[in-house]
């Protein structure tokens, strides 16, 4: 059986999600939905990062009984992208939180979450 | 013409109608009717042209006669509108809003006869007589000969004759 590798699958899924998220940001009018779209986008990036760091037939970069310290270099996947993803998740959370804060404040100010309504500044 | 006169007689109490020649009629209307009449003539009868305004001093009747001479250039008709006003400071309504040049006639009448035209532009400014301080000279109680003799240094030696008697003597010496 010659299925495409999981890494391509997840990479493809990541790209699809990325586009979906972007589409959501552009298309949705409700700020909460935009934020959700952003989360999708964010997640898709994590997926992409993980998938590009994946090496076939290797295991998670956790050095324990299963993977010895000496042959870790040949048995585990690249740990760096996963580390990056961890950081990215943290940052993503931070940004999402900030976005939600803004959403709350915007709603308090104007009583609506339609992004079209916040056009007082232009040109 | 006849219809016009009829209309004027009927509407404006015209009297004393006097046809001088073809297309020239003089008549008299009472003072209050003058302005409506002139207005009517200008607006509806085609009398666009004010030829002149003048005054006559009927000192015997103690009244001034004011004559407006109007012309209709289309039908070539002239209308002389006469009216009478009192001599003692009674004014007349100004028609300078119908014809701008009427103001000049009125100014002259004010100066020469002392007839007031309230509202007429510059009516109190001197026209011919700069600095005149006597009674208006065209009023018949003003003795122009006496005034001239007093004022203008008559050259002595001038003989003066009454034209009527002098010419009679000259032309018909035998009569």
């Amino acid at each position, binding site marked *: 059986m010659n299925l495409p590798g999981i890494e391509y699958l997840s990479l493809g899924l990541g790209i699809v999600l990325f586009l979906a998220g*972007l589409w959501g940001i552009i298309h949705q009018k409700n700020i909460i939905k935009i934020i959700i779209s952003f989360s999708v986008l964010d997640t898709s990036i994590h997926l992409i990062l993980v998938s590009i760091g994946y090496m076939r037939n290797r295991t998670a970069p956790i050095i324990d009984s299963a993977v010895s310290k000496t042959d870790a270099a040949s048995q585990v996947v690249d740990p760096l992208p996963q580390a990056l993803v961890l*950081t990215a998740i943290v*940052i993503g959370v931070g*940004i999402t939180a900030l976005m939600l804060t*803004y959403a709350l404040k*915007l709603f308090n100010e104007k009583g609506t979450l339609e992004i079209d309504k*916040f*056009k007082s500044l*232009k*040109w | 013409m006849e219809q016009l006169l009829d209309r004027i007689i009927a509407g404006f109490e015209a009297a004393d109608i006097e046809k001088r020649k073809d297309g020239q009629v003089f008549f008299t209307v009472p003072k209050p009717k003058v302005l409506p009449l002139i207005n009517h003539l200008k607006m509806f009868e085609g009398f666009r042209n004010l030829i002149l305004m003048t005054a006559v001093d009927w000192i015997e009747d103690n009244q001034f006669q004011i004559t407006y001479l109007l012309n209709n250039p289309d039908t070539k008709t002239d209308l002389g509108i006469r009216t009478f006003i009192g001599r003692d400071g009674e004014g007349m309504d100004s028609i300078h809003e119908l014809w701008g040049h009427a103001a000049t006639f009125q100014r002259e009448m004010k100066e020469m006869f002392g007839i007031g035209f309230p509202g007429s532009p510059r009516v109190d400014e001197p026209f011919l007589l700069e600095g005149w301080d006597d009674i208006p000279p065209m009023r018949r109680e003003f003795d122009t000969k006496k005034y001239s003799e007093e004022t203008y240094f008559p050259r002595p030696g001038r003989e003066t004759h009454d034209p009527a008697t002098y010419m009679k003597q000259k032309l018909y010496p035998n009569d």
Partner: protein
Amino acid sequence: MVNPVFIIVVLLGAGFLLGLFRKTGISLARVAGLLALAFPLYVSVGWMLHFIGQTAQPYVVYTAGTVPPFSINLRMGPDEAFLTAAINMLGFFGFIYLFRLFKSQGVSTIILYLVLFMGLNVIVMTRDIFNLFVFLEIASIALIGLVLVNKGIDALSAGFKYLIAVSVISSILLVGIGFIYYYSGTLNIDGFIENNSLVMKGLSTAVFLVLVAVVLELKAFPANGWALDVYQSAHPGISALISAGTATASLFVLYKLLPFGGHLWLQVAAVIGLVTFVGSNMLGIAQKNANRLLGYSSVGQIGLLVAVIGFSDDLGSHLRMIFFGLFISHFLSKAGLFWLSGMAGEEEISKWSVLRKKPALLLIFGMFVFSLIGFPPFPSFYGKWQLVMDLSGNGQILWIALILLGTMFEGVYLFRWLGFAIKHEVDESKAPDTAAEKMIPAGAFALLLLGASWVSNAYFPGAMKTSFLPLYFILFLFLIDFLPLVIKNTLSILSLGYYGWRLYPSIQDDTLRLVFAGIFLIGGMLTLFAGYSEKGKRPGFYPFALMMYAGLIGLVEADNLFGFFFAWELMTMGSYILIIRGKKSLVHAYNYMLFSLGGALLILFGIALTVAGQPDISLSMLASPAYPGWAYALLAVGFLTKTAALGLHIWLPGAHAEAESDVSPMVSGILLKAGAFGLVILFLAMGGGEAGRHPLLYALGWLGALTALGGNLMAVFQEDAKRLLAYSSVGNLGYILFAFSFMTHIGWLTGLTYSINHFLFKTLLFLAIGGVVMRVKTHNMYEMGGLIKRMPWSFIAVLVGIITLAGIPPLSGFAGKWLFYNAVIAKGWFLQGALVFFAGTIAFLYCFKLIYSVFLGQEKDRFRKVKEAPVWYIIPQFILIVGIMIFSARPEIVLKPIGALLSQAAFFPSEPLAWENVTAYTNLGYWSGFNIMLVIGAMFVVLLGWLLLMSRKAQKVKQFNIVYAGEAPFTPETTHFSHNMFAPYNKALGFLIHPVATQFWLGVNNTFHALAESARKIYSGNGQSYIIHIVAYIVVVYLILS
């Protein structure tokens, strides 16, 4: 040196520690925050000083104890030291600026502030790309948090749009980083650059994603609507941070990452940068909101810096200097301007006149504006000069054109703004906020700007170091501005005299320069003399007057193109401020500045095309430009804007007429000669004799003739005395241009004679009329009349002036006319010559109108008691009259040496004008000024005696004793025949002065405004459309690249 990692430690630590403070401890927290910011400043400045003057190796911090790629490393090299120093400077002073705000906002804001600056520092220092991403994000979050200090829906919605946009951009960046890692296996920037020889297919996409994201971070036009909203709505103190701080860091990111893309991406950056520079500045034209305008300007300036980075291959070793010049000007000015915006408290640019209440603020504002546009002595001037020179050296002509175009657009809105601040009517109820915590940062940045100017000047290759004496003196005048006028005026006059004395030996042998130096210096002293009559202290006048004169003398003194251009810009700057001082000068000064700026940019372009990157920038380079045709044409048009040739003249009448009484002669009699001098320099370089038969000269000859005709004809129909004189200047400069275009010995003599004469009589006339205007308080000639009885001395001055102007023998104007005829016939330009002659006869009409309407005719009631013009006006006038008399009687004193000079081999070797005692001979005719004067003088005296004898008992009568057809005149006003005096002439020839030029420039103006107005509609205010812009931008760039 302190390890730079402590910057992070201190800022982060302070941030955490501050979290412990409660609301009550806010005062302490603020001080602590300030101290925390002082520390990185200390560190980075220390590093910067460490790197200055020595080639030390960059200091690298390895975290986690290993070397890359297994760890993150920070680098502190000269670039990083300088940029972090700048950023921390901003952080420190920005903190002071926000000091009061923090009190109401609480500790959390301070923490955000510290985190922001930690982020910015790391962004600059880090060499790890993922780390870069992280800190970009941190800085963004902190910044967006800070935006929230401004309450209200505007700031909120703007912040949200910013947030969304930045998130999308950083997502793309992150994807790119991921792929880069995937393909290259390293996250270390240096490591990546080392192995990017093995570029693979996918890698280029990865690099594309990273770089395009960075470019978008830099707010590339037109995908930058999200940033503009924040600039506009955020607290000005925060906007300053965005504009100066994050932009700086992002720029350095681009600089660090750009090598990824190789040569291709350098070009892309250049294109993107320039498109941003031009586009953003063009849209700025239509903008009226101060903060948003600053936003546009910021975007534009950053675009220019991006372009500079993109040009780094072309610029080579000059890159750092150029970048420094442009960057530091932008950095200091933009932060300063945002701060000023907070102090002015006005959104609308026309309301910035409120700054006038604090002259210091106005001064700082002016400095920032001039530095943004690139006027000397500010660093951007040096940067722009070198940039343009280097680009032309590499043949990047189109880029130069774009840069200059963008600068022009920038000038359009910045000078409108400056003009409003100086001149627009002021709302009395408002005052700028001048709290100490706001004054300190703005003042500090202004001082830093001066310091940076000094640094640029001191370290600029080829800068004219000798010329700093005038600049110091101008600075000194600023400092003593509070002193009484008498002292300042005396000092100024003495300084001009001293400078002339000092200059004389060096130009002694160069008669041409001597003549112009004489015009500038003597004229300067004489016109300044009139200033004694002013009341009050006249604040701000002398520094700028002297700046103008310093520029003018600098022109003469300059021996290289840089010095020339430096002086040219200095003169423009000074004269602009002088002109705008007039009561109704707002619009006119603006016009003047725009034309001057345009002219200066053309000159710069022309110089660039002349030099084209060669190291030699001496004036003699003009003789052999790299691109002769274009260089000459551009230089000529540039100078013609100053001489107000027809078509480019529309600024002149208003500017000269509405200026103050003693400024008009300065700008008309003297300043215009700068353009003439420029033409002289240019034409001389084009070579004499047959070599000078450039087709351009033929065109310029016609232009000169038409200018003479047009200027004089327009002067005839003026009712405003000073406007009449101003148009007359247009005409006279037309003569001068015409004469110089001959490129013959005698033509040049004509031109120089005209120049001297124009200086003499126009200064004289403007002084005299200025004195009259000062007394009667109106410019309208028909309101004056009969003033000869009140102002006999002024009358004599005007009489001499117009006789000279009209070229009537025996006064010196005739010298010019005589030479002119000889030149025309020798050259064979008959039709043009006849046209100019026609213009000369037209001059009679306005000469007569001037003297008759003002001094003769009927005296008006209102002016029965006016006094003679102040003696301080009269004295210089009579000095000028003596000058005219000497020049008339003994023209050979001046003309002989000039002739000798012109007959040098380099110029016009033939010497057609010979002198025999006092008589001048050409092969056509002859003329003897002295004999003419003698004969006419003797005859005049005899005839006057005869008439005096015959009518000695004449009864003196008064104004209404005229025959009036038996009537008496009504009033003097109805009897004075003056208004629309030449109505029949207008009927006959008025069609010639249909204001074509005005309409044309209005059309240009309207077109660009309309364009900007409609183009900026893309910034619809909708956050989502901004995202679409970003996405579309990426797609378009990608398509273009592939």
